[in-house]
């Protein structure tokens, strides 16, 4: 709750105060209307009345109705501004906070869940604030006010109304009690059906190859009927709600008239007429009370979902950041990377991801990393731009510990190319000239040059609009190899001192891989290259190859040295190269 309040501005509080005044006046007007009704009734009942007073009362009543509508519209205006404003600021907070997260925090939440928190969860809160704020203020005040008005009249009517209210609350509460757990179950069953359908689509070939269509259909039908039955139970319970509520409120009108008949019969003289006009007012009040309770209960139904959303948002906003920024912008060397006895383990994890890694890369050198999945290659590489911080030991870039750098200054020295190519919607130019390298705008020539080096210029030339060609979200209108070449072009365009390739050649065929690496080497003679790869062919000419196994460096040396004395390297090589080439 505190989190939401932090996103309420002074202006919102003012709006809320104004809304409060409007709500009170609306209730006052709403409760005034029946009084004019009764006045009209009384006038009609009184023998010899003129038409003029009836018209006057009618005019006042209409005025009240108009005022009530205006008040409601103003309230709606301010509440809408509050609700949408709060959701805008919440969304911005989550976005900004998430942008500050390092890989460790991102992994903790998972990207998909962070997206939901920043989108759907915020919308949930907005809906609750918009609906809830009005109902929670208006309904109780209206109910209490109306009840005092009713009780000031005859107690028989008060009791009738009270019984109805209790009845409605019981009906709604029991309906919710029945439906609510089923709704939660429904979510699980829907997920399950989705999962089976997705498995079906993903495994289409396998299913057909094994003639397993019936097997799959049985699974699906089981989930389908479970889902249908739960849905039926919920819908059937809800089926009874609307007719019951309608009937109860009709019943209340009837009851008030019936009770009224006896009250009037027992009364004497002019009281009879007063009671009669009261009766019409009371039935109208009673309806208002009933209606406000129904509104309140329906708002309460929304509450649990919103609370869950709120909790998820709070989790994001209160997560502490694990990477504090430094201040240095200049190093003491240029183009060097040094790992000094670096270990890394996740908090609470028993085993270290990386253990005692030491190596250095000089300006213009190529250092390669090879090893099995899970050996820690990506983590090692990501410690250089500080996506992770070393648990012990230190990582130095240009002679200075990365923790002492201002992260922007640090990252301006290098281009990191991810394993899975990431492109953004926009044009090809937008994607290649992405970000800020601290050296001003990237020129069109630099972009072209980068595309040529990364072997992307051929397919760019074939695209409609060439460098202005549209890139769809996630780069879905490009093939895997094209995406990889574009992300390499993006790295090249920044003209960094250090390149960090995280298995970034995997989608290229051997030929392109080779040509690209040679072109890059020619264009950036002084750049330091760190390459993570799966293929021996990609890295065999590196100045230094580091073999990682289970987080430890089990071999450091050149291709031929490692073939001679590193068994893990030899195993990898044997699976990829022919006997002649191993020698």
């Amino acid at each position, binding site marked *: 709750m505190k989190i939401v309040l932090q996103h309420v501005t002074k202006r919102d509080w003012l709006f809320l105060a104004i809304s409060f005044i409007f709500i009170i006046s609306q209730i006052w007007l709403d409760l005034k209307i029946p009084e004019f009704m009764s006045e009209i009734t009384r006038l009609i009942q009184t023998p010899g009345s003129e038409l003029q007073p009836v018209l006057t009362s009618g005019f006042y009543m209409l005025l009240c109705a108009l005022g009530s509508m205006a008040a409601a519209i103003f309230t709606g205006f301010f509440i809408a501004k509050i609700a949408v404003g709060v959701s805008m600021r919440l969304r911005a907070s989550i976005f900004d906070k998430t942008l500050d997260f390092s890989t460790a925090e991102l992994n903790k939440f998972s990207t998909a869940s962070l997206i939901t928190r920043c989108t759907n969860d915020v919308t949930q809160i907005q809906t609750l604030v918009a609906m809830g704020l009005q109902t929670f203020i208006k309904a109780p005040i209206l109910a209490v006010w109306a009840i005092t008005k009713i009780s000031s009249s005859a107690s028989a009517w008060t009791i009738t109304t009270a019984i109805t209210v209790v009845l409605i609350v019981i009906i709604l509460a029991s309906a919710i009690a029945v439906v609510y757990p089923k709704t939660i179950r429904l979510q699980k069953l829907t997920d399950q*059906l989705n999962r089976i359908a997705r498995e079906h689509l993903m495994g289409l070939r396998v299913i057909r190859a094994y003639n397993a269509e019936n097997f799959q259909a049985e699974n699906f039908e089981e989930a389908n009927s479970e889902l249908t039955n739960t849905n039926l139970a919920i819908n059937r319970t809800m089926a009874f709600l609307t007719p019951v509520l309608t*009937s109860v409120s009709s019943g209340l009108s009837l009851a008030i008239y019936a009770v009224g008949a006896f009250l009037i019969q027992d009364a004497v003289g002019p009281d009879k007429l007063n009671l009669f006009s009261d009766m019409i007012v009371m039935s109208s009040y009673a309806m208002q009370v009933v209606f406000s309770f129904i509104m309140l209960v329906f708002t309460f139904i929304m509450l649990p979902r919103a609370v869950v959303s709120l909790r998820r948002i709070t989790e994001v906003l209160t997560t502490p950041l694990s990477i504090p920024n430094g201040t240095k912008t200049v190093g003491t060397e240029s183009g060097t990377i040094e790992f000094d006895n670096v270990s890394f383990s996740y908090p609470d994890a028993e085993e270290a991801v990386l253990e005692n890694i030491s190596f250095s890369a000089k300006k213009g050198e190529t250092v390669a990393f090879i090893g099995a999945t899970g050996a820690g290659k990506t983590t090692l590489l990501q410690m250089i731009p500080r996506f992770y911080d070393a648990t012990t030991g230190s990582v130095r870039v240009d002679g200075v510990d990365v923790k002492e750098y201002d992260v922007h200054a640090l990252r301006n020295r290098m281009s990191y190319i991810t394993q899975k190519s990431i492109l953004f919607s926009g044009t090809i130019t937008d994607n290649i000239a992405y970000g800020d390298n601290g050296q001003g705008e990237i020129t069109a020539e630099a972009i072209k040059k980068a595309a040529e080096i990364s072997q992307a210029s051929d397919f760019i030339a074939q695209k409609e609009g060439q460098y202005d060609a549209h890139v769809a*979200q996630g780069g879905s209108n490009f093939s895997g190899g094209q995406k990889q070449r574009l992300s390499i072009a993006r790295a090249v365009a920044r003209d960094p001192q250090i390149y960090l390739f995280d298995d970034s050649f995997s989608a290229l065929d051997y030929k392109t891989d080779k040509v690209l690496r040679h072109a890059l080497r020619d264009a950036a003679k002084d750049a330091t290259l760190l390459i993570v790869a799966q293929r021996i062919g990609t890295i065999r000419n590196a100045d230094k190859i580091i073999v990682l196994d289970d987080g430890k460096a089990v071999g450091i040396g050149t291709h031929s040295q490692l073939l001679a004395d590193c068994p893990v390297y030899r195993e990898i090589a044997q699976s990829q190269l022919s006997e002649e080439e191993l020698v």
Partner: protein
Amino acid sequence: MKATLKQLFSYLRHYRILLIIAIILASCSAIFAVITPDFLSEITTEIQIGLMGEMNTDAVLRLTFIAGLLVLGSMIFGFVQNFMMATISQRTSQRLRSEINAKIDAMPLAYFDRTTYGETLSRVTNDVDTLATALNSSIGPLISSSIMIIGTLFMMFYTNWIMAIAGLSATILGFTLTMTIMKKSQPFFLSQQKELGALNGHIEEVFSGQTVVKAYNNEAGVREYFHAKNTELYNSGWKAQFLSGLMMPIMGFISNFGYVVVCITGAVLVLNGSIEIGVIVAFMLYVRLFMNPLGTIAQAFGALQPATAAGERIFTLLNEEELANETQKTAHLDTVQGDVTFTNVNFSYTPERTIINDFSAHVHAGQKVAIVGPTGAGKTTLVNLLMRFYELNGGSIAIDGVPIADLTRENVHGLFGMVLQDTWVFEGTVRENLVYATPNVSDEQLKAVCKEVGLYHFIKTLPHGFDTVLDEKTALSSGQKQLITIARAMIENAPLLILDEATSSIDTRTEKIIQNAIDSLTTGRTSFVIAHRLSTIKNADLIFVMKDGDIIETGNHDELIAAKGFYCDLYNSQFDQAD
């Protein structure tokens, strides 16, 4: 739209008796609700008489009792009607889901090449749900509301035509006003929806590409864009939120307005002495009874719009072309040697571009065929053709001399075991995943196979052994998944084998284990291997070299190297000789 509704009604025909009963009940419920005010009016009249003299309490009680019964009746009928509609709509959506699921199996794979999984998935879930909700919440209310409106109109004119016209014109005037406002606000909702979509897209993009955003120092750029979009959303968002809240107060006012009009008209008539005061009371309720269903109908139509769109998508899928019927096929292969002959095979995914041109080859029983080529060369095309996932455009593929086109698809599928690159493991027990659709597999067989592929020890370490459910919590490594699919193929024990040996994401140790498993799987079977390992390629009896979808060279390693063709190039480029 018309065709969609027609098809939808053909589904509902199944429940026509229930549907007719539901309509009758809805009508009764509505009629009861409409007559009730008449009783209230009579009660008022009785009370009014009581004001002047002696009240007929018996009459009041009697009228109250009858009205109470009507209310009760209306409730029961309404409930039963809702109950039946819920049943009809849920059962219909269950049936639609089943049919879509069956349809997925009946369609050619080509359909899934042009449709994303997400799209098909959303037919099964979202679209069916939307349709069901609309069926459930629209049909009943539409019927009862229409009857309510007609009934109220009748009762109003029956009671007093002057009052009827007065009340009616007031409500219709108000209702037109509301509709106009709603219509005018439509663009705001659309732009809100659009901006929300764009913003969510941006959030998704930035969050999933955060590494790049940070590595390239683009936080500032991303922030600027986000805040601009977020503010835009705020500007259209509060308008949409505000406008959507207008409906209630305006309807409230119209109801009051109608009330005043009725009262004043009534007052004039009462003062004239032409009506009783009870009539006013009745009309006060009629006005409300007339207003509510108008709102309901407007809402129901609103819900029907997305529902017809959803229905259209569902039926488009259900009307897609299916695989050819094969019930008339008589050829059947039970036990086969594994001789595979390709004769002048021609194939194209799209009519414009033939990708396999006149391909012929003969694979002897028990031989191993390696399929090689650069990424994207279409190595899976061959798998698709062998398995008859796609039909040839010309020529034939024959197993032991019988063209596979003469066999049923089921028969062809049964002849092949298949292990693919994307290891497919579903949520279910280990046993279910291994045995899968193969009938009569004994525990001994299961154990023997698992021991052979080196999976037995791992399964023993699972909490419930073979009965452990594999889900997100039991995180299987990609190697273990691969072993499961290999074991599955061994259990199926088909005479021919298709196998994708993609091992790039598997560490070297596991790769060795998998290689051993694959070796024992391929022994004695004619196998087609999408080969990545050099040793497999070199040891293959026959190599199919693929490029741009076509098979351009065939032969064994030495022959192909000697030919100095594409294979030779490919082979040499893989190994970056020191240049």
